[in-house]
């Protein structure tokens, strides 16, 4: 039954994938799309204008791949953190990765760096944020898990203040709008180069978590139980933090801050397939991809001027989350 859900989600994602190619300022029918795609491997005569190729491969394909990768990454990071911290209200940002990335990007924009450097700064400062949280919380003797959460909030808030400071100092005509727009999160300017940039860290994060996913169940129990049942919670906890941070930092570095998805999608997935990570992890990744792809398709087709993706994910995410909470309370 539960494998059935996975197959359905894979098919669903494929359908959304195909449909989303056609959506946008320049409409492309599915028939044409299929023809164009196959023309890359089969000798089909080109009967369409060159602009179709550009729209599909240069503009839409990178954006769609980015939505799939980022949707999967943020949701997966959320679902593994929720287990590790034994709290369903935990999101991928909990250890300060997004706040760190936001600061890194703002700083790079402030210093007039180019796009590549902005991404590298965002990525590195995301890692720095989590590293700070991690090493400070090791000094908190009481309880490492609670220590991480508290220090994470503090580190996050420190980076947010620094970001505000940069915004305050930034040139209001040019840099401030760029920073503000970056922080809202968007996939509108993604290129194939960006995809290459994030593919490696996302793979490095996703694959170990996928392999170790059954053990995440044990990690979600009380720590003393998990240890005496034979799980090295320290080692697995570190792997989870490293993997989630790589995926989230990579995502945020090319898309900006996209909120709520790492909180809403794990909840929805748990309602559909239950808490067992064996099925929950792939379900969450697929559902996250589908969700972000749908929302991004709306973003680029709904109104004349494109709304930043991050605004829409939280605008839809928070009421949807309330709906899920009410529903699960009743069930």
């Amino acid at each position, binding site marked *: 039954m539960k494998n059935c859900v996975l197959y359905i989600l894979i098919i669903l994602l494929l359908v959304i994938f195909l449909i989303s190619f056609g959506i946008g300022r320049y409409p492309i029918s599915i028939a044409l799309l299929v023809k164009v795609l196959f023309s890359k491997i089969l000798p089909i005569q080109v009967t369409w204008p060159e602009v179709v190729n550009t729209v599909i491969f240069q503009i839409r394909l990178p954006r769609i791949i980015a939505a799939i990768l980022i949707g999967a990454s943020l949701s997966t990071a959320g679902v593994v953190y929720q287990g590790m911290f034994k709290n369903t209200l935990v999101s991928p940002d909990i250890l300060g990765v997004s706040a760190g990335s936001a600061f890194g990007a703002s700083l790079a924009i402030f210093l007039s760096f180019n796009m590549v450097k902005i991404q590298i700064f965002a990525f590195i400062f995301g890692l720095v944020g989590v590293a700070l949280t991690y090493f400070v919380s090791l000094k908190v003797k009481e309880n490492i898990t609670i220590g991480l959460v508290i220090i994470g909030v503090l580190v996050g808030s420190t980076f947010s203040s620094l970001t505000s400071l940069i915004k305050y100092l930034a040139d209001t005509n040019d840099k401030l709008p760029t920073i503000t727009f970056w922080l809202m999160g968007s996939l509108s300017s993604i290129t194939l180069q960006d995809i290459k940039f994030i593919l490696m860290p996302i793979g490095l994060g996703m694959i170990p978590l996928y392999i170790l996913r059954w053990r995440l169940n044990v990690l979600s129990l*009380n720590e*003393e139980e998990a240890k*005496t049942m034979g799980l090295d919670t320290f080692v697995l906890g570190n792997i989870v933090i490293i993997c989630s941070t790589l995926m989230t930092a990579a995502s945020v570095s090319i898309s900006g801050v996209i909120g709520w998805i790492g909180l809403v999608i794990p909840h929805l997935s748990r309602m559909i397939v239950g808490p067992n990570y064996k099925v929950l992890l792939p379900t969450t990744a697929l559902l996250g991809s589908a969700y972000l792809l749908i929302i991004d398709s709306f973003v680029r087709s709904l109104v004349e001027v494109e709304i930043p993706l991050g605004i829409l994910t939280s605008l839809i995410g928070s009421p949807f989350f309330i709906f899920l909470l009410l529903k699960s309370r009743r069930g």
Partner: protein
Amino acid sequence: MLEVKGLDCGYNGKVILENVSFTAKEGDMVCLLGSNGVGKSTLIKTIVGLLIPYKGDIFINNEDTRNLIWKDRAKIISYIPQVFSSMFQYKVLDIVLMGRTSYLGLGSSPSKEDRDIAMEAIEKLKITHLKDKIYSRLSGGERQLVKIAQILVQQARIIVMDEPTNNLDFANQTIMLNHLKKCIDMSMTIIMATHFPDQAFLYGTKALLIKDGNVTEIENPNENLTETYLRDLYDIDLKVISLGLSDISRKVCLPVF
């Protein structure tokens, strides 16, 4: 066999118990008795490896446990804490299967064989009807039985429990203890903290009395755990009464007003 030799234990740099030595053999049920906050849980956590001893050694089957990794430790000694639950809505069978963690490779999940072992434990504890229920929604007594099933599939020969009958109603306490008795009969070893001297009389092969940082070992508590010891242990007036039941002598401990 578990051997504790000259153990000093505690936490946060504070020594709670000093120079503790005792052994627990196959078929032993060791009852830890003492007032609240006297160090029963500290001793238990040190034995299972959750706290690092300040001094002394703990041997299991003549092997020093100090440097054991969790995976190897879990195969020889298992632990039921005072409080346990799950934030998430796992099914009982999933919870029991987690007891197989130490036997599974890094990337694997429970096999058909692991499932059979889990089902056998579930049937042994007569909780087959609970197998597809949500663990976190069960009553305290049912949850305790599920936890025992999980410990059984872990297949460690030594079980350490912190007040296993706490929060259980009278019938569930008895059911629980009878299951533990069966484990003893299969020559496993049980070490448990308890607040009921009666349990030491009825099931204990050994009692450890913990007071003021010291541990007194008493063999065969049904014979040797006297009123004097208990009065001294709890600092209240009490009476130990022998009941003349059919074939065996039973004792109960009652407070005196």
